[in-house]
C-alpha cells in the first residue's frame, strides 16, 4: 500500500516537473488580466504630497487603458490586450519592511510586474531583491543616481530621471535668471535626499560660477521638524541671497508659512526643487517669486501646456479627484504608460502575449511621448530615463484664483545628465564636460 503511494507521489512529481518545464520554455499563455503591484506612500507624511497623487495618477491611466479611452496614439485597450488589475500597496514603514512586502508581492501574490516607489531609500533596498527574484520592476519617482550607477540592472527600470539633473537645472536656472547674486545657501532636510540635493547644487554652482560665494552655514534641520524659527533667523543673517531647498510636503508648507511672517521672501530668493504640492495647498498664501521645480515636465510647470495627451490628463484628473495632478501623478502615469507601450510592442513582435523577457526587451531604450513631454530610457544600458527638467517662478493668478508660473525654462537632458557610462558625481567634479545646453 505504502509503496504504491510512494510510486504515485513520485509519478505525480515527475509529471508536474515535466509540465512546469514545458510551460517555462514554451510561448507565454495569453492572459485576460495581469496583476501588477503598485507601491506608493498611502500613510504617513509622504502620502499627501506624493503617495496619493501618485496612486491617483496610476489609477486614472490604468482605468483608461483598460477601457481603451486614452487619446491617440495609445487608444488601444489593455496591456497587450490584457486588463491590468492593480494591487496598491503602502510604501511606508521603512526599507526593511518594504523588502519584505516586495517579496510578498512577488512570491505570495504572484504579480506580473511591480511599478512605483517614491523614496530613494526604498528603491535602493528593493532593487537587489527585484534582481534576485527576477521580476520586472519599473521605478516611478525616486531620485538617487546610485540605483543604476552602482551596478548594472537587468530587471529594474526607472521612468524618472535621477535627481542630479534637478540640482544642476536649479543651479543653471538661477544663474540664468539672477546673475549677480552675493552667494547662496540652503535649507535641506538632514537625510539622504536633502544631503544629496544640496551637495549636487553646491558642486554645480562652484563649477559654473566660481565667484559666487557658498555660505559656510547651510542649514540641515531634522526631517519633519516642523519648526524652523532658528534656521530662518540664521539664513536671514547670512549675506547669501539665494536659498536652495529640497523640502517637500508638510515641511515646505511649515517653512514657507514661518518664513513668510518674518519677511523672508522680501530679502531672499528661494529655489525649491520639489515643493510643488505646497503651491497648490497653500494657494493664495504661497509667496510670489519663488523658483519652483517639478523634477520634469510635470505638474505646475506644464499645467497649461497645449498638447492633447497633457490636456486629457489634466482634465480627467481634475474631474475625478477634484485637484490638479501633481508631479508624482505624472510620474506614476508615465510608468504605467511605458509598461503598456512595451507590452503592446512586445506582443506585436512576438505575435502573441509577451513573456517578461520580451516585455523587458521592448522596454529597454524605449522613447515615448508621455503626458507632460518626451521621455527616453537612454542611460544605464536603456534602463534609466532622461527628460528635460525645468523651473519657473510662482505667481498667484488673481483672475483665475489659482497658482501659476512664469519664466518657465526647461533644460534638455544633454545639459543636465552625465552621458551614458559616466558616474554623475565624477562628471560633475570634472566640470560637466560635453554638456549641450
Amino acid at each position, binding site marked *: 500500500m505504502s509503496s504504491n503511494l510512494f510510486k504515485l507521489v513520485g509519478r505525480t512529481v515527475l509529471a508536474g516537473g515535466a509540465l512546469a518545464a514545458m510551460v517555462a520554455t514554451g510561448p507565454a499563455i495569453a492572459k485576460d488580466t495581469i496583476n501588477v503591484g503598485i507601491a506608493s506612500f*498611502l*500613510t504617513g507624511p509622504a502620502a499627501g504630497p506624493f503617495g496619493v497623487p501618485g496612486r491617483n495618477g496610476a489609477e486614472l491611466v490604468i482605468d483608461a487603458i483598460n477601457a481603451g479611452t486614452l487619446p491617440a496614439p495609445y487608444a488601444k485597450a489593455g496591456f497587450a490586450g490584457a486588463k491590468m488589475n492593480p494591487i*496598491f*500597496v*503602502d510604501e511606508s*514603514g*521603512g*526599507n*526593511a*519592511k518594504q*523588502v*519584505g*512586502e516586495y*517579496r*510578498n508581492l512577488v*512570491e*505570495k*501574490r504572484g504579480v506580473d510586474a511591480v511599478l512605483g516607489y517614491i523614496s*530613494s*531609500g526604498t528603491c*535602493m*533596498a528593493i532593487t*537587489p*531583491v527585484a534582481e*534576485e527574484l527576477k521580476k520586472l520592476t519599473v521605478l516611478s519617482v525616486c531620485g*538617487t543616481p546610485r540605483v543604476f550607477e552602482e551596478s548594472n540592472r537587468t530587471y529594474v527600470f526607472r521612468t524618472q530621471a535621477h535627481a542630479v539633473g534637478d540640482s544642476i537645472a536649479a543651479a543653471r536656472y538661477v544663474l540664468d535668471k539672477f546673475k549677480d547674486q552675493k552667494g547662496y545657501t540652503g535649507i535641506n532636510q*538632514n*537625510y*539622504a*535626499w536633502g*544631503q544629496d540635493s544640496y551637495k549636487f547644487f553646491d558642486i554645480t554652482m562652484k563649477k559654473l560660477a566660481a565667484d559666487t560665494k557658498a555660505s559656510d552655514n547651510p542649514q540641515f534641520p531634522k*526631517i519633519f521638524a516642523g519648526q524652523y524659527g532658528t534656521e530662518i533667523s540664521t539664513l536671514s543673517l547670512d549675506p547669501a541671497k539665494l536659498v536652495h531647498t529640497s523640502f517637500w510636503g508638510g515641511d515646505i508648507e511649515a517653512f514657507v508659512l514661518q518664513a513668510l511672517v518674518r519677511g523672508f521672501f522680501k530679502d531672499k530668493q528661494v529655489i525649491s526643487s520639489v515643493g510643488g504640492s505646497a503651491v497648490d495647498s497653500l494657494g493664495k498664501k504661497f509667496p510670489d517669486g519663488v523658483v519652483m521645480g517639478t523634477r520634469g515636465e510635470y505638474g505646475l510647470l506644464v499645467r497649461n501646456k497645449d498638447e492633447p495627451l497633457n490636456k486629457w490628463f489634466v482634465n480627467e484628473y481634475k474631474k475625478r479627484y477634484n485637484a490638479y495632478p501633481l508631479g508624482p501623478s505624472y510620474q506614476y502615469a508615465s510608468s504605467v504608460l511605458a509598461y503598456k507601450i512595451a507590452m503592446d510592442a512586445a506582443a506585436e513582435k512576438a505575435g502573441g502575449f509577451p513573456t517578461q523577457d520580451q516585455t523587458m526587451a521592448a522596454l529597454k531604450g524605449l522613447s515615448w511621448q508621455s503626458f507632460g513631454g518626451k521621455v527616453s530610457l537612454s542611460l544605464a544600458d536603456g534602463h534609466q530615463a532622461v527628460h528635460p527638467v525645468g523651473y519657473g517662478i510662482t505667481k498667484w493668478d488673481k483672475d483665475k484664483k489659482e497658482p501659476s508660473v512664469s519664466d518657465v525654462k526647461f533644460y534638455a537632458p544633454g545639459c543636465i545628465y552625465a552621458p551614458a557610462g559616466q558616474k554623475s558625481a565624477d562628471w560633475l567634479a570634472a566640470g560637466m564636460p560635453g554638456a549641450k545646453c
Partner: protein
Amino acid sequence: MVSMAWNDKTIRWAIIGFALLAAAGWLLPTWILNNVMFGLARGLAVLGLLVLWRTGLVSFGHALYFGLGAYAVALLEKYGGVTDVFLKFGAAIIVAGVFGFLLGFVLRNYRAIFFAMLSLAFSMVLYGVLVKMEVLGSTDGFSVTQNTILGWKPDGKYPLFCFIVLTCVIALSAVQLYLKSALGHLTTAIRDNELRVEYLGYSVARAIHVKYLASACLAGAAGGAMAMALGQVDPDSMVNWTVSGELVFITIMSGAGSVVAPFIGAIVFEFIRTYAFELAPQAWQLIVGGTLLAIIFFLPGGIWSLLEKPWAKGEADNG
C-alpha cells in the same frame, strides 16, 4: 550540560518543534519561509526582553542592540568584504554585547519608567548618528546581499533558515537553563522585592547587569539575523524607537509564560502584519494596533496562555 538540557521538558519539546520546523522549511513556499525567518530573528530579541520583563523591567530601547547587530553585519560586508554567516553573526553579538556591557553600568541603577526612557534615549542617539552620517548609509542604509556558509555560497534561503532555526534553539535552551539556575531564579525575586534579595546576599545591580547584557546580546543576534535574512539595513527599520516599540509589542503579545512564547508571538506578528498590509494598505497599522488591544483585554497572559492551559500540569515546574 547537554543531558541537563534534554531533561528539561521545555527544551526537549522546543528542540523537537524546531527540528520539525526546519524540516517543514524545505517544503514551505518562499514567502512563508521568509516571514517565519523574520519572525524567528525578531523572536531572539523578544527572548531577551522576556528576561528583563520577568525582572520587572521594560526596555523601550532595545532597537539600539538590534540596530548595532544589523549594522555590524552590513558594515562588515560593505567595508570588510566579509560574507561568512558565522563571522557576521558573531560580530553582531560581540558589538551588541560590548555596548550592552558598558551601558549596563548606567542602566542597572534605574528602574521602571526611568529605565525605559533612558534606554530609549540611548537608542535614539545611535539613530541620530546613523541618519547624519553618509558613510554609515544615512537614511538609505545598505544592502546585505552576500551570505556564505564556510565558503559555500548557497542557492536560496533555506540554509540561512536552518542556521537561524539552530541559533534560536541554542538561545532558547541557554535562556531556559539560565532561568532555572540560582541567578535565574532571582529574576522574579528582584521584581517582587529587591530589598529582600539584597538581604539574601545577592547584588541586585549585578544580577540586573547580567540580564541586561544577555538581552543586549540576544537583540544583537536578532539584528544580525534580520539583516542577513532581509538583505537590507536602514535606521528606520532597525534602530528607530518604533522598532523598540514593536519588540515590546511582541513581548506583550507573546506573554512571558515560556521561552518558546517569543518565537511563536513573533511569527504570529509577522503574519498579522503581512495580512493586515494586504487587506488594508491604508489602515494596516490600525489592524496591528487593534490586535494588541484585543490581546491585552482578552488574553492578558499573551498568546502563550492559549497554549499553556492544556499543558499546565506538566509545565508547572518550569514556571
